[in-house]
């Protein structure tokens, strides 16, 4: 970005509205995401940023553009493997009576994570089991995309095994649409992770990957504290590989237990008894 003041003002805007932090060094990202918006208005970047002060519509677009996570189906691969190999078996055992799983895809972006999980559950849940995947995000535009369940050629090229593409998607024009039987298990809710959580019920697995990295330390700790009661006592929390609960204030760090599953750390509520080992 050409002018540091323009970057600073965008960064302050995002922080004010979402608690997300865009430090220096993220200029390239802000520039890449905002340039198309500026071009659409026929403005250069600095003119566009100046306009944000009095244009609420454009401000909303900027928030949307800057809070979108880069994502792909089965991103990083190993967490999904850990999910099917090490988390599902104990959950299937412990939920044998209710035969129902609830998953939260927090900061779901365009939904690839949620539908990746849905594909795995479709393959691995025994007959008669139910599941629900709740997707939340700060961007209503992203939530609409999750509900539509349509992905571009470029998106389905990334990370999605070809066998799953032909099994779970149908070509609709230029896009590929997720099968109805997966879409109907996915519900969406608009929410800001930095604000108090609405009533969502409790979850067996919470996917909170590559999200905390955007928040300052205080907000991060606050989110992890409020996540505790959202997770079933024997549930699993997944963070991005560069994120951890270990650098949190002592009382909070102590309330999360880290279970290493192969290369993937899963976080459990420390108060829960270890009922089954989950070593890979």
């Amino acid at each position: 970005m050409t002018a540091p003041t323009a970057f600073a003002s965008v960064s302050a805007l995002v922080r004010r509205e979402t608690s997300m932090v865009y430090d220096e060094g993220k200029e390239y990202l802000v520039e890449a995401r905002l340039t198309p918006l500026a071009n659409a208005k026929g403005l250069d970047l600095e003119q566009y940023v100046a306009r944000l002060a009095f244009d609420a519509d454009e401000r909303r677009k900027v928030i949307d553009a800057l809070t979108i996570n880069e994502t792909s189906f089965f991103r990083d691969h190993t967490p999904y493997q850990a999910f099917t190999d090490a988390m599902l078996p104990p959950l299937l055992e412990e939920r044998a009576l209710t035969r129902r799983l609830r998953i939260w895809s927090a900061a779901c972006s365009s939904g690839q994570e949620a539908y990746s999980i849905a594909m795995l559950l479709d393959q691995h849940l025994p007959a008669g089991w139910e599941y629900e995947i709740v997707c939340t995000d700060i961007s209503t535009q992203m939530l609409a995309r999750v509900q539509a369940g349509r992905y571009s050629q470029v998106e389905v090229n990334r990370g999605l095994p070809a066998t799953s593409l032909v099994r779970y998607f149908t070509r609709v024009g230029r896009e590929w649409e997720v099968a109805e039987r997966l879409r109907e298990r996915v519900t969406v809710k608009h929410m800001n992770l930095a604000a108090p959580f609405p009533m969502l019920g409790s979850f067996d697995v919470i996917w909170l990957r590559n999200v905390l990295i955007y928040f300052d330390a205080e907000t991060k700790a606050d989110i992890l504290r409020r996540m505790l009661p959202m997770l079933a006592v024997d549930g699993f929390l997944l963070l991005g590989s560069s994120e951890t609960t270990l650098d949190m204030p002592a009382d909070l760090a102590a309330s999360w237990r880290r279970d290493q599953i192969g290369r993937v750390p899963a976080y459990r509520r420390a108060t829960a008894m270890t009922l089954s080992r989950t070593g890979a």
Partner: protein
Amino acid sequence: MRAMIIDDSRAMRSILRRIVSGLEFETSEAEHGQAALDQMRAGVVPDVCLVDWNMPVMDGYTFITEVRANPEWRDVTLMMVTTESEQRNIVRALAAGAHEYVIKPFTPDAIVEKLSLLGLVPASDQGVPA
């Protein structure tokens, strides 16, 4: 790991070569299926073939059928990289023995991620957002 890039476009082979070389694959190239088969019969058997569909002399679909017909080559992983993008064609290629399928145009990430799905590169687990 060795990759054979089979595409009639030199420009496309160059793009693919740069991507897989970056993953430290040794590469060989062929401009159609027949040339690729000739190389393999001469002993240049790769771990993975990146195969275009529409090519002169022998197309990629025929090539994967030929490779699958030879039990000596059963360990060779086959990945189509083609502009053919009808669901029907993807199903056909998988049924004929292709392991993966990348639709052109693609970004380099798409190739890397598919190779990683196939267990040919260590999964990138850096998880750093854009």
